[in-house]
């Protein structure tokens, strides 16, 4: 058992304070804009804190450390690609400035203004399914991490998953985005400290020279050169860069933070400064994974090896702070994600199917019910689903189900006047087809005819989704008569 009474006290005090802060803030929510986008009053530093906290969860520590353990230094390229994508979006304002200027609260809401309500409904359904599936493994990974670090082993996973979800749902349901932003800030401070503790402990236990020797011994060239590693290569690099740009500009939990910013200029800067942290956000846990490779050697359970290392090398007291930091990372991610997906469900699916004059109170209530429903789904899905390939690739392929189509639909909508609803339908459906095909067909890989085997290569399926979505948008739009092209609308909300 790694966890002492002192560690427990630190974690319980931290959890109690977070819940209190999250629930206390609910008194400031005055309307739907306050609930979903914090009244669009978030300034730069707070925006960066909340966006970084959203994009760092314990799940990201686990899957990035898993990559470090199985791929060595060569996986650092993922951090560089993600940083380049966010800095690109931040410097150019690509998509995020345009969406913020439109005054929308969710991305499918933009679809309606540009292409019509049926496109919003289809986009909302695909976004909701892709987003919730993507999030489906978060709880399980977090449970694995915490049970290994604390020394309780796999039997504690379900209990830890349930407690975390109940805590997060409590304050997200009550306070919406305002609670999410304020607790994200507290969590950002604590998780940054936890990351520093873990990194220092990793370097004390395993010096850089030992890490380099372990990578050379166990992984050879594949551990140094991403092009020599069979997991990666050029298709992977191109796919991950395009996917990172799409995720930066269009992933609803992150973009909702840009949409909460007080101006399009602040939204752009939030992405730029967040981009500066993104290489470190990936490489820091990757180094923990490399340290685990050097400490334990190969052949360990890839997901559990890094938390097991931290449980061994971080001393009591600091271990409590580390776990508090990891809990902070997870809770900030859950709260932002559940709020993002439940707001899409309430506004873009239920809202499109029901009467147009639905009151704000009904939308907030629907969002709250959806948040609870998503939490129940996550608890059940996370317990039985077996992740294909590495967790990193599962997250990117399930995310591509939505981001591939959305990138074509929103980018064309903002920057190509000839884009039409038919092109949008084609892009959304074609973009979802390849990832969906991968997730279904990967389970019957052995029985597939050889000509269809390429779909079970996660890198090919991911890259294909973006190509198909772009082709669908171009072909569908050009096949539409010029007279049917809609004129883009300006900001309708006034916010």
């Amino acid at each position, binding site marked *: 058992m790694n966890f002492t009474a002192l560690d427990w006290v630190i974690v319980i005090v931290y959890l109690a304070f977070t819940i209190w802060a999250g629930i206390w803030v609910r008194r400031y929510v005055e309307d739907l804009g306050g609930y979903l986008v914090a009244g669009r009053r978030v300034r730069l530093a707070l*925006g960066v804190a909340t966006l970084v906290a959203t994009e760092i969860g314990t799940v990201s520590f686990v899957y990035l450390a898993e990559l470090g353990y199985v791929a060595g230094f060569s996986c650092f390229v993922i951090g560089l690609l993600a940083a380049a994508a966010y800095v690109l979006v931040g410097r150019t304002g690509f998509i995020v400035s345009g969406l913020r200027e439109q005054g929308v609260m969710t991305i499918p809401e933009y679809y309606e203004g540009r292409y019509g309500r049926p496109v919003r409904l289809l986009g909302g359904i695909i976004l909701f399914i892709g987003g919730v599936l993507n999030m489906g493994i978060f709880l399980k990974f977090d449970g694995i991490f915490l049970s290994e670090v604390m020394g309780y082993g796999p039997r504690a996973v379900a209990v830890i998953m349930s407690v975390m979800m109940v805590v997060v749902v409590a304050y997200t349901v009550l306070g919406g985005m305002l609670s999410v932003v304020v607790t994200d800030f507290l969590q950002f401070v604590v998780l940054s400290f936890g990351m520093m503790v873990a990194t220092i402990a990793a370097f004390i236990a395993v010096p850089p020279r030992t890490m380099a020797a372990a990578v050379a011994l166990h992984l050879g060239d594949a551990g140094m050169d991403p092009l020599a590693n069979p997991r990666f290569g050029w298709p992977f690099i191109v796919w991950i860069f395009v996917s990172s740009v799409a995720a930066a500009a269009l992933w609803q939990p992150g973009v909702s933070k840009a949409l909460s910013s007080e101006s399009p200029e602040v939204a752009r800067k939030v992405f730029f400064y967040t981009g500066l942290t993104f290489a*470190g*956000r990936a490489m820091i846990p990757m180094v923990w994974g490399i340290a685990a490779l050097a400490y334990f050697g190969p052949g360990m359970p890839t997901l559990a090896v890094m938390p097991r290392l931290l449980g061994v090398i971080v001393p009591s007291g600091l271990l409590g702070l580390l776990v508090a930091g990891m809990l902070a990372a997870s809770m900030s991610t859950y709260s932002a994600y559940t709020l993002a997906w439940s707001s899409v469900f309430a506004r873009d699916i239920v809202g499109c199917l029901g009467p147009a004059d639905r009151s704000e109170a009904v939308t907030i209530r629907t969002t709250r019910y959806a948040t609870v429903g998503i939490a129940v789904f996550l608890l059940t899905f996370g317990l039985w689903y077996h992740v294909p390939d590495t967790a990193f690739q599962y997250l990117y392929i399930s995310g591509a189900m939505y981001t591939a189509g959305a990138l074509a639909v929103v980018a064309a909508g903002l920057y190509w006047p000839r884009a039409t609803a038919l092109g949008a339908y084609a892009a959304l459906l074609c973009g979802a087809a390849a990832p969906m095909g991968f997730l279904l067909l990967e389970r019957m890989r052995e029985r597939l005819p050889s000509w269809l085997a390429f779909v079970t290569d996660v890198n090919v399926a991911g890259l294909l989704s973006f190509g198909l979505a772009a082709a669908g948008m171009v072909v569908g739009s050009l096949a539409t008569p010029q007279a049917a092209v809609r004129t883009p609308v300006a900001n309708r909300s006034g916010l």
Partner: protein
Amino acid sequence: MSPGAIAWMAIFAVSAACFFVVAGVVSLLGIRDVKDLLRRHR
């Protein structure tokens, strides 16, 4: 250490420094932004 490993370690050092510097600055300035956000919602 091989030249490749040294290069990756240098990239890691710069990336980690960027992360923790931005984290430190944002943690300090963010307190003001949280206060401002709550004041404007009051």
